[in-house]
């Protein structure tokens, strides 16, 4: 990770008065870089929420030091500090007595922005989060769960804070809506580049949302703090391995893009070429078929059977591939293409039908094992 540190926790501990000496978070240190999304993930009660709440002083650390943008949070007025940090919780906590527009305007109003500026900002945010203008005058209890969640995010973004704290923000909605909200939020984060601390207990959500994942164990102990890819590739210990669960390989495939691994050239022949060329290409790769490519354009495939009795490849009538993948496809999609195609490989094409090469099962599994 490069870049400057936005949030830093140094030897932070929290012992709750009622907890009789056992620490909710014990000696936790972590640096979060400007613009990255760090996901805290771990079993229930491991101290994720406590860790997050110490950053905006909803919970005061018992010991240790926390800085946001270089300033010690304990030396700032907590109310001022919180107004500069976006905050989203699972149950959202929209104010039932205020309309959606008023809810979004909460922090701007606390900061005494003038009314025209507030109005403008609310319009902007409802646009960004695709909230229908008709919703703005309604009250929260008139909205669906997904809509409320987006209002919660809009509200947290209202004064464009550089840091966002999100505690299981999509935990309360059904899986389909959750996936949409996650995608929408990823798009948003691509543009906004906030520094985000995101709490979840769902490893798949963590893998999807995170630049880096911190896997916590009881007492806020960090078992591993690394990119999702690295955590899946080389889990630090049994706890991480178990938490990440089965299908570690498949989960990694979902993270890797076709463009990230070497693509093989594969057997290729031009339609004008004599049959002999096609046979040579097949022999070279030890396949019984080959792609037909004309000026870089993928026409389809032919095999020994269809070439029988023909003089040129063109005569053999290339058959189209049933599916192909692009540079942006995940390896998981490529794998799907491999196991469902008769040719047992994924054909990679770009920009419509431009032939790039092929991906074989061997190539993908080599990537996963390395």
């Amino acid at each position, binding site marked *: 990770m490069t870049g400057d540190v936005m949030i830093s926790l140094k030897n932070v501990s929290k012992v709750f008065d009622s907890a009789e000496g056992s620490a909710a978070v014990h000696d936790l240190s972590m640096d979060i870089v400007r613009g990255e999304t760090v996901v805290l993930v771990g079993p229930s009660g491991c101290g994720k929420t406590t860790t997050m709440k110490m950053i*905006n002083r*909803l919970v005061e650390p018992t010991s240790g030091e926390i800085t946001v943008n270089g300033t010690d949070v304990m030396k700032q007025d907590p*109310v*001022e*500090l*919180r*107004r*500069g940090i976006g*905050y989203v*919780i699972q*149950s*959202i*906590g*929209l*104010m*039932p*007595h*205020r309309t959606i527009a008023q809810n979004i305007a*909460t*922090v701007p109003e*606390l900061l005494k922005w003038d009314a025209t500026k507030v109005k403008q900002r609310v319009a902007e945010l409802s646009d960004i989060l695709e909230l229908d203008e008709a919703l703005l005058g*309604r*009250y929260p*209890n*008139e909205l669906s769960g997904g809509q409320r969640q987006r209002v*919660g995010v809009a*509200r*947290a973004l209202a004064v464009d804070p550089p840091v966002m*704290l999100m505690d299981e923000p999509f935990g309360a909605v059904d899986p389909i809506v959750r996936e949409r909200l996650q995608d929408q939020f990823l798009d948003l984060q691509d543009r906004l580049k906030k520094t985000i601390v995101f709490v979840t207990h769902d490893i798949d959500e963590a893998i999807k949302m995170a630049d880096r994942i911190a896997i916590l164990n009881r007492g806020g102990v960090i078992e591993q703090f690394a990119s999702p890819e690295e955590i899946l590739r080389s889990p630090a210990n049994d706890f991480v391995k178990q938490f990440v669960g089965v299908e570690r390989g498949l989960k990694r495939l979902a993270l890797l893009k076709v463009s990230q691994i070497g693509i093989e050239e594969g057997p290729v022949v031009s339609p004008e070429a004599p049959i002999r060329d096609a046979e040579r290409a097949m022999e070279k790769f030890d396949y019984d078929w080959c792609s037909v490519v004309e000026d870089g354009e993928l026409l389809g495939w032919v095999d020994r059977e269809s070439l029988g009795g023909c003089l040129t490849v063109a005569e053999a009538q290339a058959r189209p591939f049933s599916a192909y993948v692009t540079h942006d496809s995940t390896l998981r999609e490529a794998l799907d293409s491999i196991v469902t195609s008769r040719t047992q490989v994924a054909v990679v094409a770009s920009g419509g039908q431009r032939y790039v090469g092929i991906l074989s099962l061997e190539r993908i599994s080599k990537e996963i094992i390395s």
Partner: protein
Amino acid sequence: MNLAQADRPTIKWSWIGDNSDKIFARFIEHIELTVLAVAIGLLISVPLAIYAYRHRWFYTPLTSVTGILYTIPSLALFAFLLPYTGLTVQTAEIGLVGYTLLILIRNIVAGLAGVPPDVREAARGMGFSSGQMLWRVEMPLALPVIMAGVRLATVTTVGLVTVTALIGKGGLGFFILSGMRTDFITAILVGSILSLVLAVTVDGLLVYLERRITPWSRSRAGQRRPAPKTQSSIGPRVA
């Protein structure tokens, strides 16, 4: 109807006409005594209830004391106050205010306790100071429960005002008392029917007021959060 009227003392309509000025004046006095009592009651209850809500230890002694005030028979209370404050408005108001306190305090505390914890947490996380939290989040959200207390206190006070006729005030109670003393049914009926009408009207007005100031609590009533449990443990149930 005609048969029934024959054997009974009839209402002297002419008396009502002749005394309409006096009746109107007493009607106004009744409203004044009521409004003053509830207003003072609120002025005392709001800070006490807020304190009791923030410092839980204070709630039990507070409701014990106001509970005693609430259960003292009104006659006894006025008799007790007479040597100190005499036949004055103060005597009447001290008694009337005393009766509103328990109702108001209980409902204000219950209303505050019923504020959803997630709303409070989100507000704190967004940077509300504790004063802003109270006046912009907690009190507005407690309003339906507080208004229910105000209605109950007001209707109770309308009834109690008639008793203050015994110490020379009483609003419409004056007619009930003098009617009983002189066995004059018309005055009794005027006093009691008008105070009943007053109670029902004021209650209706307060319901209307509550709807106006809490438009959010009506929208899609079916989707409202279930009432929090704390409400039943302290304070009267709310309609």
